């Protein structure tokens, strides 16, 4: 069916492809659809519900039928054949409405890019090109995005001239001129698919698909453009709409404009003998072009009583029969159109039935912008009617269909859009021939007794009869009808069927279409791959991996890592042959009996500086910080106003007006934000500045009875004796030759030092510590065991947002002196005063070998009643303790502080494990070990 000449395909090269197992050839410039038509393939799909044969219906992204599966070079489901550029080696197959995902991983790359412009023009048809040209003439920054491989839009599929040259040549020259300008970007193969608030539009550029297997691996296959535009011109054109009549789904029924595009742009005859069924002059023009291309146009059937435009005259001149005032009543054929029946009683042999019920402006993006639409009775369609954003539609996208009008409209819109940024510059309007056209008729539905083969939504197999059944069931809203019938919900999202469905509903209900409205236009305008939207935020780049200055050492020394927020923290350091339990027992023993060290750099650190720093901290912490002496350290807890624990950590006083606050690893950013919020919005008069120094410092916890000796060796200038360097104080000193701030604090109960050096020096310090040969590295798991043995809670593990400091047995950290601090008022609410609140306790399983799973609940009785079983609390932390020689747990238990010594039961699997409630401090309750 390939014409001998014409079209924008490169006949000098042949591309081989396969469809449904058959080998075919095509040419560069073809789509899969045009190549299939050229090879005489008519049936390209099976309908989803009724299993009917379906052919190619359109020539663009609005295609409702020819949705195919790409098999090679890599499987991709559900692409309209009309949007697949042909490439060598393409293998595709037809579908029955459901695509297939690849089993293997997608090897392609994807990415995203931000762009900014004064004017974004969407669509490079005549109106869009004219708009971009006018805007660019002012020097404005312009982006012109178009979904086709070459600019021109409808000009590529027509024989119109612009400025005295063929339209496609004018488009190419205009695009070349635009591309030569430094502030203009022309994006081909780029579909703008979403229009969001504040003129934020998103587009997808298909960059390597058309190269098939030859696509370079380093290039992103698809790219999301995130465009922030000062002004937007939507020159998105129009979609031709079908007419509902019997058999209007047969292969061979095609939109008239699509057929013209195949003939003119792709050099393909979509059939040999055609009947045209249309109520507008544009379809007459299409019929003429097809006749010129070699199609035998048997008749034009036009419901208008007397279509008298120039095209009609030229059709008559050519001897084409014009059946005015008539309609097509049925398309007949076995598997494809073979004849066409009309209301005149004629049955016309034809293999092609071209339909045009008129044109719908592509208002999707306009609507998405928040714009309203108005039903225009004269052209029977929805047109833009005002948007809150800086946007206007131009050309066919706002119902201006004739070429001269599109060029003028685009030019005006482009100039107006640029004037927001640049001084105006007069631009001439590209010239095209005016043709006086007759008014179109909005024609939707051919009346019949039986509507079971009048299709409104081809892809969902929805017929007029289905719509009538929905309205008959009592449905009045077009949204309900859509959901009842599924019309408009398929891959094409109702591009050709939406308004037709509304019209059929309106007729059934006897209301005007305008009153009924239509369903909402939602992003994306065209389907977009998940991978494109994910971009490069995948795998290791999915979310930032934060590492400390010591990370390379941890990796080199076999650490396994725990994700804590975005951080990678060493979890434990297994030696050959060790499992986690063995490694942790060994690390714990080292900390309790010898010396061990942990990378504590991930703790958040905030410098709080200013004369009112003490007062500021007093307002946020539950305890008093202003009384802290310079050189000392204090533990503190922060609550939210509802009284629940938010974060904890140590505070050191560096100078009278300078505190250094540490936060938990996961909460560092939240705490800084929290402090800034109170400081800026509630207490702006406090003279305090906050500066994050989390990564300024690398922090090493040196723990164990031998830690003093190790530190003494590394810091000969530092007096480390228990009297010289008491618990909860800090010193500045050189450690391992590096200036350091050393704190005597302990999160394990053992004698311990926390050594802070600049993160540049962290590895140096750590290496020096390890080079002593005396120190065992330990990870977060061991840290958890050590602190749990001492009953120190972990915020987020032993608390869950419903726990007060009192519940944690930490009333000692709540100041009774301060008149107020954040959270204080909530401690006297009815619920927080209850004696039976869940409180932190220790648990000792009666069998010292039984390790309770964290999350296990506790019940009062040794046998379980029928559910719901009253629960007393749950296990928050549970470990095997080297120091205790047994397992133990921490738990939040109802009224737990009054239950010490009580026996409770923990349902584990099918058994009930008896446990004894104890104080949450299980190891060294006297605190004898902290001084070594």
């Amino acid at each position, binding site marked *: 069916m390939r014409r001998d000449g014409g079209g924008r395909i490169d006949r000098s090269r042949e591309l081989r492809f396969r469809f449904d197992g058959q080998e075919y050839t095509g040419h560069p410039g073809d789509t899969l659809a045009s190549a299939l038509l050229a090879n005489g393939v008519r049936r390209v799909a099976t309908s989803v*519900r009724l299993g009917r044969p379906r052919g190619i219906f359109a020539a663009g992204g609005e295609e409702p039928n020819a949705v195919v599966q790409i098999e090679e070079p890599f499987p991709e*489901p559900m692409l309209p054949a009309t949007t697949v550029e042909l490439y060598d080696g393409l293998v595709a197959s037809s579908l029955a409405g459901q695509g297939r995902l690849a089993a293997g*991983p997608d090897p392609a790359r994807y990415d995203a890019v931000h762009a900014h412009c004064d004017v974004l023009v969407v669509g490079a048809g005549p109106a869009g090109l004219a708009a971009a040209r006018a805007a660019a003439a002012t020097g404005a920054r312009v982006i012109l995005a178009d979904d086709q491989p070459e600019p021109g839009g409808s000009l590529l599929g027509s024989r119109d001239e612009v400025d005295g040259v063929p339209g496609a040549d004018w488009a190419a020259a205009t695009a070349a001129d635009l591309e030569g300008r430094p502030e203009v970007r022309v994006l081909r193969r780029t579909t703008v698919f979403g229009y969001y*608030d504040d003129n934020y539009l998103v587009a997808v550029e298909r960059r390597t698909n058309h190269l098939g297997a030859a696509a370079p691996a380093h290039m992103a296959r698809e790219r999301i453009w995130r465009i922030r535009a000062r002004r937007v011109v939507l020159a998105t054109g129009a979609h031709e709409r079908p007419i509902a009549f019997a058999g209007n789904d047969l292969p061979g029924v095609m939109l008239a404009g699509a057929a013209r595009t195949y003939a003119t742009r792709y050099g393909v005859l979509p059939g040999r003998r055609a009947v045209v069924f249309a109520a507008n002059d544009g379809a007459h023009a299409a019929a003429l072009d097809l006749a010129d291309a070699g199609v035998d146009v048997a008749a034009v059937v036009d419901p208008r009583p007397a279509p008298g435009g120039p095209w009609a005259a030229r059709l008559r001149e050519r001897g084409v029969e014009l059946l005015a005032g008539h309609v097509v009543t049925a398309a007949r054929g076995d598997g494809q159109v073979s004849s066409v029946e009309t209301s005149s009683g004629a049955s016309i042999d034809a293999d092609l039935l071209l339909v045009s019920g008129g044109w719908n402006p592509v208002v999707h993006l306009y609507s998405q912008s928040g714009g309203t639409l108005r039903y225009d009775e004269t052209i029977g369609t929805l047109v833009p009617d005002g948007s809150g954003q800086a946007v206007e539609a131009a050309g066919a996208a706002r119902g201006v269909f004739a070429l001269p009008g599109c060029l003028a409209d685009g030019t005006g819109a482009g100039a107006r859009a640029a004037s927001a940024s640049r001084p105006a510059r007069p631009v001439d309007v590209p010239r095209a021939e005016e043709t006086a056209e007759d008014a179109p008729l909005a024609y939707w539905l051919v009346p019949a007794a039986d509507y079971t083969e009048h299709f409104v939504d081809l892809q969902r197999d929805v017929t007029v009869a289905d719509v009538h059944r929905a309205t008959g069931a009592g449905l009045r809203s077009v949204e309900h009808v859509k959901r009842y019938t599924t019309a408009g919900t398929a*891959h094409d999202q109702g591009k050709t069927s939406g308004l037709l469905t509304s019209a059929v509903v309106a007729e059934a209900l006897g209301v005007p279409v305008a009153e009924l409205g239509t369903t909402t236009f939602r992003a994306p305008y065209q389907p977009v791959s998940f991978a494109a*939207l994910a971009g490069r935020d995948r795998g290791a780049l999915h979310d930032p991996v934060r590492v400390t200055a010591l990370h390379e050492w941890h990796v080199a020394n076999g650490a396994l890592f725990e994700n804590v927020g975005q951080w990678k923290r060493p979890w434990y350091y297994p030696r050959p042959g060790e499992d986690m339990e063995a490694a942790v027992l060994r690390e714990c023993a080292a900390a309790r009996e010898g010396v061990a060290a942990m990378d504590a750099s991930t703790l958040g650190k905030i410098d709080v500086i200013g004369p009112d720093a003490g007062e500021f901290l007093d307002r946020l912490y539950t305890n008093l910080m202003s009384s802290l002496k310079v050189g000392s350290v204090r533990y503190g807890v922060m609550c939210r106003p*509802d009284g629940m624990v938010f974060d904890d950590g140590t505070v050191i006083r560096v100078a009278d007006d300078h505190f250094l606050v540490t936060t938990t690893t996961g909460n560092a950013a939240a705490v800084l934000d929290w402090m800034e919020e109170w400081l800026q919005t509630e207490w702006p008069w406090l003279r305090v500045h906050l500066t994050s120094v989390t990564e300024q410092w690398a922090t090493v916890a040196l723990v164990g009875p031998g830690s003093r000796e190790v530190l003494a060796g590394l810091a000969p200038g530092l007096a480390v004796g228990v009297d010289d360097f008491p618990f909860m104080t800090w010193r500045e000193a050189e450690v391992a030759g590096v200036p350091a701030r050393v704190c005597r604090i302990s999160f394990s109960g053992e004698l311990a030092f926390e050594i802070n050096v600049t993160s540049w020096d962290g590895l140096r310090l750590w290496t020096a510590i390890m080079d002593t040969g005396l120190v065992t590295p330990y990870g977060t798991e061991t840290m958890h065991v050590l602190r749990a043995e001492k009953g120190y809670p972990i915020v987020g593990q032993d608390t869950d947002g419903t726990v007060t400091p009192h519940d944690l047995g930490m009333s000692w950290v709540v100041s009774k002196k301060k008149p107020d601090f954040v959270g204080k008022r909530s401690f006297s609410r009815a619920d927080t005063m209850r004696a039976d609140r869940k409180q932190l306790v220790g648990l000792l399983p009666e069998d010292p070998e039984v390790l309770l799973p*964290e*999350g296990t609940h506790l019940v009062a009785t040794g046998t379980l009643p029928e559910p719901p079983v009253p629960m007393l609390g749950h296990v928050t932390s549970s470990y095997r303790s080297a120091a205790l020689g047994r397992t133990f747990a921490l738990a939040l238990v109802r009224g737990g502080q009054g239950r010490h010594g009580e026996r409770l039961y923990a349902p584990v699997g099918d058994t009930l494990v008896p446990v004894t409630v104890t104080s949450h401090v299980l190891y060294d309750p006297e605190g004898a070990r902290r001084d070594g």
Partner: protein
Amino acid sequence: MSPRPPGADLPDHPDRLWSAGEPKSSYDVVIVGAGGHGLATAYYLARNHGITNVAVLERGWLAGGNMARNTTIIRSNYLWDESAGIYEHALKLWEGLEDELDYPLLFSQRGVLNLAHSLQDVRDGVRRVEANRLNGVDAEWLDPRQVKEVCPIVEISPDVRYPVMGGTFQPRAGIAKHDYVAWGYARAAAALGVEFIENCEVTGLRVSDGRITGVDTTRGSIAAGRVALCAAGHTSVVAATAGIDLPLQSHPLQALVSELLEPVHPTVVMSNAVHVYVSQAHKGELVMGAGIDAANSYRQRGAFHIIERQMAAALELFPIFARAHVLRTWGGVVDVTPDASPIVGLTPVDGLYLNCGWGTGGFKATPGVGWCFAHTVAHDEPHPLAAPFSLDRFVTGALVDEHGAAAVAH
């Protein structure tokens, strides 16, 4: 040719559903909002309590709000006893609802997996499973290998950014078709005499001497002995007309579907850590939800970067989805309370009842809420299962803090 897709075998709708009409001047009960909750409440008012002089007012089209926009996940595996109580009641009703309503709801108990990606997720997951079991809610803890058995397409490699460390599984959980549920209730309620008034926005609540007397609407005033609010994201706006402030904030919540795909995904997978939840509907489309927008908004659309992040998260869990396509995105407006649990019960105004704050959990609760709220309206006292969800809890502090249990309560 490929096999006939399951879409070919979907059940037909009945030939008669309901008809929305003109409002009368007065009703015994006016329900504000014809979403799932409003419709279910109307149905149970009529069926359980014999109250049939009821109008359900809807500002748009019936069930066109969040009911039409949610991702249809049904589960009852909530942490706290109070939540488990009402959601499990709902799930039990779901299990008999197709027969009850004589309507195909495509209720499919395919199970819901909640994945754990950190040690804390594991602790929280085990805690929830164990609480569920003691509350009589079916739940299991699965290790990564078992996760893979339930859903073979989940990536469980330890090498990804946030590896799957296990998951909770509720086998009785699943999905249903949202529209069918709404229509099933509407049809059944209509058969019992309930009236539906569409395109009828309530612009004010009429209160006299501390008692509700009716509502003002865009279609005139309607007298009512009792008024039950089921207006989801717009509850604050309606309640404010009676001078009632509520601890609610309304946020956009987005969801999306893919094209129809051959079956690959046999269950429902949720991951709070990476903010994604996904199932494959009966016709074959992947249905996915994202997190809520941070800022309050009544715009029924969300921000695009949330979709992008959701896709990145989805591909970490399901690399097989790479070349699936997003067909359509949309947003609803959810009303969220400070503790992420609903408010159901009485108000300071006699005869005015409140059902709101369901956030992202509203759909799955539909039968349970309808049942309990109808009881509340009929008896002027909270149903025992709804009693913990009083407005008063914000004063006493006895919150039902599902935030603490999960970042999102989908």
